[in-house]
């Protein structure tokens, strides 16, 4: 029996989260740990430093389930996370990236 759940087929909506974070080793670990612990699947992840090299921007593609609000609050609590913004699935960042995965 496959444990892979097709969330798109289950009718869940995609959400793009945009995080501004401190740029140092360990930040990704803090963020990914929160999602992994709760078995909250991250469909896509992208991270690049900003022009101000002390900060990075992380993009997360997730499916919206009833735990998303709590998930966002937990991310906001991290000391290294400066801000969290939420976008709809129409956001272009992952769409453009998709051609690299064909």
């Amino acid at each position, binding site marked *: 029996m496959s444990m892979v759940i097709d969330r798109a087929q289950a009718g869940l909506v995609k959400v793009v989260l945009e995080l501004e974070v401190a740029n140092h080793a*360990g930040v990704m670990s*803090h963020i990914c*740990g929160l999602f992994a612990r709760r078995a909250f699947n991250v469909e896509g992840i992208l991270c690049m430093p900003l022009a101000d090299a002390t900060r990075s921007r992380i993009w997360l593609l997730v499916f919206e389930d009833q735990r998303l609000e709590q998930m966002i609050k*937990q991310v906001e*609590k991290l*000391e*290294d996370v400066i801000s969290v913004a939420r976008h709809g699935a129409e956001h272009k960042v992952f769409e453009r990236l998709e051609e690299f995965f064909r």
Partner: protein
Amino acid sequence: MMQMTGAELIVRLLERQGIETVCGIPGGAILPFYDALGQCDTIHHVLARHEQGGGFMAQGMARVSGKPEVCLASSGPGATNLVTAIADAKLDSIPMVAITGQVPLGMIGTDAFQEVDTYGMTIPLTKHNFLVRDAAELLEVIPEAFRIAMSGRPGPVLVDVPKDVQCQMVSFEDYPPVAVRDIPPVPELAAIERAAEMINAAEQPVLYLGGGVIHSGASHLAVTLAEQGGLPTTMTLMALGAMPIDHPLSIGMLGMHGARYTNYVLEEADLLICVGARFDDRAIGKAAQFCPKAKIIHVDIDPSELDKIKTAHVGITGDVTQVIEALLPRVQVKLRKRWLSHVAGLKDRFGLAMPNLENPRSHYGLVQAVADALDDEAVIATDVGQHQMWVAQAYPFRRPRQWLTSGGLGTMGFGLPAAIGAALAEPARTVVCFTGDGSLKMNIQEMATLAEEDLNVKIVLMNNNSLGLVYQQQNLFYGKRTVASKYKRAVNFLKVAEGFGLDAVDLDTAENPAATLAEALKRPGSCLIHCSIDRDEFVYPMVPPGAANTEMIG
């Protein structure tokens, strides 16, 4: 221009932060720091016998002072041993700064001697953590660690410092400012007004206080709010002492081992005012059936607690002190005669049964006899298990920070080192550690630390030669199959205590146990007070794990 090593810099920054006592154990990777600490006259180092003990001593200090306190460990096993005390501080929101040594920077990731990924390992257990890669970073990291530990919802912060960073020379112009608490978020006025309207309109409100009330120093305000609004008040395990237990509005502790009437009152509430509590499963039982008729007002400084378990009708993010101060002028004075007399009726019919209260050799009687011999200035610590619940049920707590217990993590072995920490922070008080024979053995080596520091700590041991709460659950829920919960041989704790250099008295053989107990408690210094209790005495009432709070046994 100042110049010093990273190790000296840490010591200076701790001094400036007002740290007077630190607890820990040295080892290879933290020796440069210990060398610098040895040159410092203002900081007293307490040598624990196990790093977990050192961590709980720092917690004990922090739990009575409310300020962040410091524990130390070396790399590898030192850090792994410390982990349980850090996790415990996280779950009970205790401000603590842990400083660990690490292998030199160039050896990180090579499986060097005594290397573990302390930073990675402590990510989910700390409020925040740091791996310092350059001694100059300490100027920022150490004050940040203190600021984070004490701001908002308090918690543990870990700073991992490689050995070569401790030895590295650093030059700087000025010390950074001493860290202070962040100013808490201003509570939203509209929400305060809605909450006040709901309190004024409620017929059967209940005030539900949690550990956040203690952390915020808001106990007196919470009592004022209860008195003004005529609010029956329940406390979580962490909030005991926020309202004196014999206050007419107190309905005692709720939850798994709360009195029947407390859980019945909550069942009938039409409004629940949750202040600095987090709807923990041991407090509320089955979440869907908790307070089924009540609207909920939830006040917490941590926004992620709002709507986590129960959705609040009004959620207020803010410091408990500020929120209650804003509520008070808006809450009408109410006598609520009908509701309070109904609550009193439930208390009469379903109050807590405490059999054998007059016999100091029974479990409730022993708790009562200790309370009779002491005043409210004493600090009461516990370990984890049946004795902890009996003390929570029966001890007359009357002031905040009188009661130190491991609530969220439920760590056996917490009691003795936490009591040592409390006595280090407030040497004028008598500190009692209620413990069980299972728990005491989990950090019994700290008896050596206690004897060495010569502190006023009395260990009251309820000995049933078993893991009592496990034995109880197996009897109640596992068909009386008592697997691995009874010890086959008994330990002579009196000889053990004597071996560590502590005084010891045995209530089992005392002619007048109450007098022997009182005398031992009044004598200055440390003492083990041993008392055998009946293994088949269980903690009642009990809500079976996963059941609703109204489905109590016993």
